[in-house]
């Protein structure tokens, strides 16, 4: 059991330790890379340990926020320093800690301006952690934007040939959504007045409760809903706002891609669940079909487009679009209005909604693990061959068996093979969604087949067939690379077999959300 | 003094004053101008005598003729290097100067004659002849101009010092 002081400070530590690490890095000498790398590795490892402490100290049966901290910050405008985690954010925080540590470890190969690189990386971690922990809109928005800036520089400085274009596209695109969200936050802010003090507040929990007691109405509510949706849909990225993703991924450095795909995309879906569903259940129900449609299109469209890619990173990027489509579909199913009929009772349908959300959340975590690992593998290959053209390889498995086995393993996880974690999330999301959207879910199954097709085709062109003579001296994975991937692979396997450790808290939170928060409307 | 002589003296002095003044403003040689200026001052002093202001006339002669003109002559000498004798002494504004002078005269004339010879309601010649003691009393007596007088003396002192400072050669 954690002492109370420790649990009070845990989230603050998780968020700000990387920030202090980043500041400390700035004071290190510029010409020596190793102290910087050691410091970044140690800091991110400590954060990872803290995340594990959070994970183990989390009570997965309790609803509501845990480890919460609340202190007034700018009381005159109702801003408070309010942090807390529930079953939705806790797994994502743990994922962030893990992926950041692995990315930092992998980034030891970075030798160009390492000081700035690692400082940005740790700053990025602060932003991501804060986004998931914040329970105050002001705080949330601050962290949301903080996470944007280091990523912009990571892509823009350490990226590929078209890095400026990609970085600016990434930044502006996200910013457009953020601004829309800011307006919606202000709408909520001014809609609520504390009956006692007569003040407005940015506190998220208070605002959610207020939306229940005295909701925004009419056009204002619809517009706010869409504003939130826009911000998060761009981040996810949901069709048709997804085109920044392939560019950003292709240009980003490997570790940047890992974090981008593994964590930043989750901020979008996290927001959809946390804010759109909880704050606007009526609007969510009204427009659930739109979200579902977007999800289904993303699944089919993303996988179809991925199939046509010849750049390995683009392929993985578009596969992300497809995989996040499952998350969108799950969220849509949870949002949708339910009509009990003779075919299905209300209880089954509500359970199905929770199932869909569970699947969506699990899919977020799994996608983070799997796609993170995939990007690492792509990076490993790129590091050795300096190109990513799928057709330019061939028969590598014979030459690099460990790499081949890992790529096959991760690809299979990504295409949803049972026993590996990708399957559980996808399966649960579809299982729940099917009860709500029968035809749509049935259609999205096409995406599963196509996903399998392009992954197998990719494997075939890279690993199988006769060995391309250019790569007869290709080196297999070195120790660092193996140890970067090993924890991911292990987790993929464990969560594939027994997802309960992650799913239990998620289920508690989602059950609470669907029954107690959305159900009140 | 009877009327004829008075009139004769007045007109003679007027011609002297105005003629000399015209010479002052028109001659090219600045030294000649200075001498004509002396003539004009003397004429004005004569007019003062005609107006029973002997004290002032004396002052006029002493200060204007004796001091100021000498001062001017010194200045002319000091700046002699650039005093070409045949230099053009009028600038481009001289026509405007003529206009200004004539218009002033016309204006004053118009006022004077417009009042039908009754300017300030003065009629005839006063009978009292002022005495020098009256001036002394006005200047230095009780309820008089003692303060302005003292200030004027101070002004002179200041002007003298100032002139010395301004005209002094800077020692570098």
């Amino acid at each position, binding site marked *: 059991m954690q002492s109370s002081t420790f649990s009070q400070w845990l989230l603050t530590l998780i968020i700000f330790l990387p920030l202090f690490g980043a500041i400390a890095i700035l004071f290190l000498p510029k010409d020596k890379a190793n102290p910087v790398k050691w410091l970044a590795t140690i800091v991110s490892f400590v954060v990872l340990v803290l995340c594990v402490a959070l994970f183990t100290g989390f009570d997965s049966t309790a609803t509501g926020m845990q480890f919460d901290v609340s202190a007034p910050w700018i009381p005159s405008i109702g801003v408070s320093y309010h942090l807390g985690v529930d079953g939705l954010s806790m797994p994502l925080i743990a994922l962030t800690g893990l992926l950041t540590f692995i990315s930092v470890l992998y980034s030891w190969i970075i030798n160009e301006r390492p000081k700035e690189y690692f400082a940005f990386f740790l700053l990025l971690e602060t932003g991501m952690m804060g986004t998931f922990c914040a329970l105050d809109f002001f705080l949330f928005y601050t962290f949301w934007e903080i996470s944007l800036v280091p990523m912009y520089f990571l892509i823009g400085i350490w990226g590929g040939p078209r890095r400026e274009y990609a970085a600016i596209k990434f930044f502006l695109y996200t910013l457009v959504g953020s601004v829309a969200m800011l307006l919606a936050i202000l709408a909520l802010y001014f809609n609520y007045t504390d009956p006692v003090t007569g003040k407005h507040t940015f506190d998220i929990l208070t605002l959610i409760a207020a939306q229940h007691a005295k909701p925004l109405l009419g056009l204002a509510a619809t517009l706010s809903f869409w504003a939130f949706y826009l911000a998060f849909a761009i981040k996810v990225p949901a069709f048709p706002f997804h085109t920044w993703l392939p560019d950003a991924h292709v240009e980003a450095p490997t570790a940047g891609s890992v974090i981008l795909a593994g964590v930043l995309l989750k901020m979008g879906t996290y927001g959809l669940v946390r804010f759109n569903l909880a704050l606007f259940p009526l609007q969510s129900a009204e427009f659930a079909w739109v979200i579902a449609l977007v999800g289904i299109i993303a699944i089919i469209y993303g996988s179809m487009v991925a199939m046509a890619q010849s750049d390995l990173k683009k392929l993985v990027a578009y596969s992300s679009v497809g995989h996040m489509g499952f998350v969108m579909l799950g969220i849509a199913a949870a949002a949708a209005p339910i009509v009990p009929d003779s075919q299905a009772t209300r209880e089954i349908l509500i359970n199905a909604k929770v199932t869909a959300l569970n699947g969506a959340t699990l899919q977020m975590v799994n996608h983070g693990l799997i796609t993170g690992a995939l990007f690492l593998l792509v990076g490993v290959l790129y590091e050795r061959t300096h190109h990513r053209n799928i057709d330019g390889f061939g028969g590598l498995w014979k030459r690099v068996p460990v790499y081949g086995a890992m790529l096959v393993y991760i690809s299979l996880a990504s295409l949803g093979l049972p026993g590996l974690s990708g399957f559980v999330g996808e399966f649960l999301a579809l299982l729940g969604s099917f009860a709500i959207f029968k035809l749509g879910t049935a259609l999205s199954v096409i995406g599963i087949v196509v996903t399998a097709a392009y992954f197998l085709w990719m494997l075939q062109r890279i690993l199988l067939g006769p060995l391309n003579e250019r790569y007869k001296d290709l080196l297999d994975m070195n120790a660092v690379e193996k140890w970067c991937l090993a924890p991911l692979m292990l987790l993929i396997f464990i969560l594939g077999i027994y997802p309960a450790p992650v799913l239990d808290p998620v289920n508690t939170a989602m059950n609470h959300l669907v029954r107690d928060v959305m159900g009140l409307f | 003094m009877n009327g004829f002589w008075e009139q004769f003296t007045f007109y003679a002095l007027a011609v002297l004053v105005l003629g000399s003044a015209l010479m*002052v403003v028109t001659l090219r040689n600045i030294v000649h101008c200075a001498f004509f200026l002396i003539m004009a*001052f003397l004429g004005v002093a004569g007019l003062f005598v005609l*107006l029973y*202001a002997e004290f002032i006339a004396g002052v006029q002669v002493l200060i204007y003729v004796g001091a*100021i003109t000498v001062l001017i002559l010194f200045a002319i000498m000091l700046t002699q290097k650039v005093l070409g004798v045949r230099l053009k002494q009028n600038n481009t504004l001289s026509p405007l100067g003529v206009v200004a002078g004539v218009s002033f005269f016309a204006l004053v004339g118009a006022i004077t004659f417009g009042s039908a010879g009754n300017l300030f309601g003065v009629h005839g010649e006063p009978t009292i002849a002022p005495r020098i003691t009256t001036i002394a009393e006005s200047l230095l007596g009780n309820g008089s101009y003692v303060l302005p007088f003292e200030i004027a003396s101070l002004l002179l002192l200041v002007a003298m010092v*100032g002139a010395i400072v301004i005209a002094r050669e800077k020692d570098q």
Partner: protein
Amino acid sequence: MITVNHYVLLSAALFAIGIYGVVARRNAVGVLMCVELMLNAVNINMIAFARYVTPARVTGQVFAVFIITVAAAEVAIGLALVINLYRNMNKINVDEVNLMKW
């Protein structure tokens, strides 16, 4: 009979000539001389009014004394300036001293 009007007109004429001189002369010393003429014109007026308007109190004469004093001071300063000007710029024609021209 000589009335005050005669003196006024005479002084006006002298003043007018002074105006012309002040405006038209190039030589700075000349300008000063014309200023003296104008002051004399004023003095004539002063004395004439003292004679015709306030013969008992001779206020005009008192003022004439002040004017003469001031004129002396003015000339002293003016000539000092002219000499300074000459020394610094080697010229005393006022239309040539045009540092303040646009």
